[in-house]
């Protein structure tokens, strides 16, 4: 791509990453969550593939695979935390520990330190979606040999 597109992409990609991280991190407070924020981050990966070419991200495939495994293992482990009562029991909710502050019912005051296992599961699913959609984009970008950007 031309130098204009490359410069704009260098400015915009960190903004997209920050917005995706925000959507994942505030999944238990605002609309959005792991799937949506992960899709936002994957769109940044798509922008990088379009502008700079997929060859630049080829060496990151190990990192993407690692993120996918980490997300899946964290999700299952968080679900197994509540196996004493039921699978997917929210054991951290309201317990006073990590993310354990009880919320007042009614309108949303926006306390980040609430939700029990929900924020952690949001991050697990977000990592899975980032790695999954990102590797799909990179694989499609690598397909066909020489890229004609």
């Amino acid at each position: 791509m031309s130098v204009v597109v490359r410069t704009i992409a260098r400015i915009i990609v960190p903004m997209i990453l920050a917005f995706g991280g925000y959507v994942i991190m505030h999944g238990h407070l605002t609309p959005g969550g792991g799937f949506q924020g992960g899709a936002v981050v994957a769109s940044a990966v798509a922008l990088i593939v379009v502008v700079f070419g997929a060859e630049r991200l080829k060496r990151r495939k190990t990192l993407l695979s690692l993120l996918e495994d980490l997300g899946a293992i964290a999700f299952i482990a968080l679900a197994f935390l509540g196996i004493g009562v039921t699978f997917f029991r929210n054991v951290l909710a309201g317990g006073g520990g990590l993310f354990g502050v009880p919320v007042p019912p009614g309108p949303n005051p926006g306390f980040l330190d609430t939700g029990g296992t929900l924020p952690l599961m949001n991050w697990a699913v977000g990592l899975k979606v980032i790695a999954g959609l990102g590797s799909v984009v990179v694989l499609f970008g690598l397909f066909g040999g020489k890229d004609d950007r």
Partner: protein
Amino acid sequence: MRWLKVGALLVVVGFLLGAAAWMHPFGLPWASDMDDYFIANAQGEAAANNVVTSVVFDYRGFDTLGEATVLLCAVVGVALMLRRITR
């Protein structure tokens, strides 16, 4: 045969028109026990103000697990389809 087709078409159109005419009003569920329970208790039980997230990740966690599995299968399918074949 032609009249059979026309009759079948008329039956289907009549069924659809009747269904549209006697449709249940939108936004009025037949049984709202589950919705009322979520609205009343989700903020206290899951300790999150976003009830949708507590339904997705807490009450219906199995559904999210299935969605993650579907995503994994899609990625594996793409990786299989687009792999480099050396012979």
